[in-house]
C-alpha cells in the first residue's frame, strides 16, 4: 500500500471517534451539531499545551476528552435550557471556542517536536508508520466497542429512543433535555479525542485546524448511511462499524484526489463536492427512477 493511502488510513482512524460522535448527534439524537469545529481544535489545543508542559499522556487524554465534553455540555444547555435552535447553539459555542482555544494556546500554532506522543509507544515495531497505524487502530476499535456497548445498555436505548420519538420518551419517564445534554457532551468528547490524536499524528496544533472538519465527519456518516440503506442494516452495532468504514472511505477518496495531482489548496472544495455527491446521489437516482416509471 502506498504511503499516501497508509497516511489516509491512519488519519481516518484518528478521525473515526469524531465521526462516531457526529453519528450520535445526527443519527441518534437527530441534532445538527456543529460545535465539532471548535471542540476538535479544543482537544488538539489542550493536548499541545499539556504535552509541551511535559504532562504524561495518560493525564492529557482524559483532560482533552473532558474539555470536549464541557464544550458539548455548553451547547446542550443553550439548546435545551434557553430553547435556542440546536444549529445556532452549536454555532455560538463553536465561535466562542475560537477565542478559548487561542487563549489556551497563547498563540496560533504549537509544534509538538521531540515529544513522546501516544504513537511513540509502538515505534519499537520496526516500521514507525505501521506502529502508528496499530495505535490508531487500537484507539478506534476501543472507542467503537465502547460506544456499541453503550448504545445497547438501558441508558443507550433511552438515548436512541429520545432521538427517535421524544414524545414517547417523555411519557416513559425520560428527561429529554438531560439526555440530550449528555449526548452532546459525549459526542464532543469523542471529537476532542480526535483532536488529541490528530495533533500528535501531524505533530502540531493549529488554531485553524478545525475549520470545516465537521464536513469530514458528516461525510463519513453519510457514506455509512448510504451503505446502511444499501445493505438494509438495522443493528446499531453494524451501523457504527459502517461509520468507521465511512471514515476510511472518505479519507481514501481524498488521498486518491491528491495522488492524481490535484492542488492541495482545493482539498476543502473537493471535500465539500464529495459530500454533496453523497447527499445528492440517492435523491437524483430516485427522481430519475420515478421519471422512468
Amino acid at each position, binding site marked *: 500500500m502506498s504511503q499516501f493511502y497508509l497516511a489516509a488510513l491512519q488519519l481516518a482512524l484518528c478521525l473515526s471517534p469524531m465521526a462516531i460522535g457526529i453519528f450520535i448527534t445526527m443519527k441518534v439524537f437527530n441534532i445538527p451539531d456543529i460545535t465539532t469545529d471548535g471542540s476538535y481544535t479544543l482537544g488538539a489545543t489542550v493536548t499541545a499545551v499539556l504535552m509541551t508542559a511535559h504532562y504524561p499522556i495518560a493525564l492529557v487524554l482524559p483532560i482533552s476528552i473532558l474539555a470536549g465534553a464541557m464544550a458539548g455540555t455548553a451547547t446542550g444547555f443553550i439548546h435545551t435550557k434557553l430553547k435556542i435552535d440546536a444549529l445556532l447553539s452549536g454555532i455560538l459555542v463553536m465561535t466562542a471556542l475560537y477565542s478559548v482555544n487561542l487563549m489556551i494556546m497563547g498563540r496560533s500554532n504549537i509544534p509538538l517536536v521531540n515529544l513522546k506522543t501516544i504513537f511513540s509507544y509502538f515505534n519499537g515495531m520496526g516500521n514507525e508508520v505501521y506502529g502508528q497505524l496499530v495505535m490508531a487502530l487500537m484507539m478506534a476499535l476501543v472507542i467503537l466497542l465502547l460506544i456499541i456497548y453503550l448504545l445497547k*445498555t438501558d*441508558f443507550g436505548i433511552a438515548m*436512541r429512543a429520545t432521538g427517535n420519538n421524544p414524545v414517547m420518551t*417523555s411519557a*416513559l419517564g425520560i428527561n429529554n433535555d438531560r439526555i440530550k445534554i449528555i449526548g452532546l457532551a459525549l459526542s464532543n468528547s469523542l471529537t476532542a479525542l480526535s483532536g488529541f490524536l490528530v495533533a500528535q499524528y501531524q505533530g502540531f496544533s493549529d488554531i485553524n485546524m478545525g475549520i470545516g472538519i465537521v464536513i469530514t465527519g458528516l461525510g463519513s456518516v453519510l457514506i455509512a448511511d448510504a451503505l446502511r440503506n444499501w445493505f438494509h442494516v438495522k443493528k446499531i452495532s453494524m451501523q457504527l462499524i459502517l461509520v468507521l468504514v465511512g471514515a476510511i472511505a472518505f479519507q481514501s477518496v481524498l488521498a486518491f484526489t491528491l495522488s492524481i495531482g490535484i492542488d492541495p489548496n482545493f482539498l476543502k472544495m473537493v471535500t465539500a463536492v464529495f459530500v454533496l455527491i453523497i447527499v445528492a446521489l440517492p435523491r437524483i437516482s430516485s427522481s430519475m427512477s420515478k421519471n422512468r416509471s
Partner: protein
Amino acid sequence: MLRIQNITKIFNKGKEDEVRALDNLSLQINKGEFVVVVGANGSGKSTLMNLILGSYAPTSGQLLIDDNDITPLPEYQRSQWVSMVFQNPAMGTAPDLSVIENFRLAALRTKSKKLSIGNDEAFHQLVKEKIKTLGLGLESKTVQPMGSLSGGQRQALTLLMGVMDKTSILLMDEPTAALDPKSSAVILQLAEKINRELGITIILITHSMKDALQYGNRLLHFKAGKLEHDLNADQKRQLQLNQLYDWFG
C-alpha cells in the same frame, strides 16, 4: 385516586383567539374505575388528558394523584403514576427501535436507565409471554423494528407497554381512531382486561358511542369545557344509544 380541583385551561389568554378549553372543572376519579369520556370536538376532553399527562400546564387549579400534587411536575416525572396510549399508534412507540427495546424502556418507566444491558434472554422471554396473551402472533416479531408493524399491532403493543411497569392511571386518547374494527375490539377488550385484573384506573376518550356504552363503568360527557353528565355504572347501563346521541344535539 385522581382529584381535579377547579382546573381552568385557557389557550392564547388575552389574545383575539383566546379559547377557554376547560372551565373550572372539579372531578374525582377513584382507583380501579374505567372512565369513558365523550364529547364533541373542542369540548375539552383531550385538553383534560394532556393536563393529566403533563403536556399542558393548567391556567389555574390543581391536580392530585393519591394526595400527591402533580400540578407543577413535568411530563417525565408524572410517568411514575400515569401512562399513556396515544391516538396515533406512531406516537407511543419508537419506530427505529426493536419491539423488545421499546418494551425495555416501558419496563423502566419508573426506574433509572442504567449503563448495563438489561435486555437479556430472561427479559426477552417475559415480553414474549406477555405479547402471546394478545393472540396476534407478534411474539415472533420481538426483534423487528417497531415501525415495521401495522398501526393496530403497534397500538396493542403500546397498551401492553403501558402496564409493563407499575402505574396508577392509564390514559387512552381515542386509541382506536386510526384502527379497523377488529383491531379496535382487541384494544378495548385488552383495556377492559387490564382494568379488571390489575385494578388500574383507565380514562378512555372515544368518539364511538357504541364503545362508550359497551366499555367502562363510568361515563363523562363534556360540552364547551364543562362537565355536562357524570354517570355511574348503573346509570350507564340504563342509558340508550339514542339518549347518548341526544347529548350531542
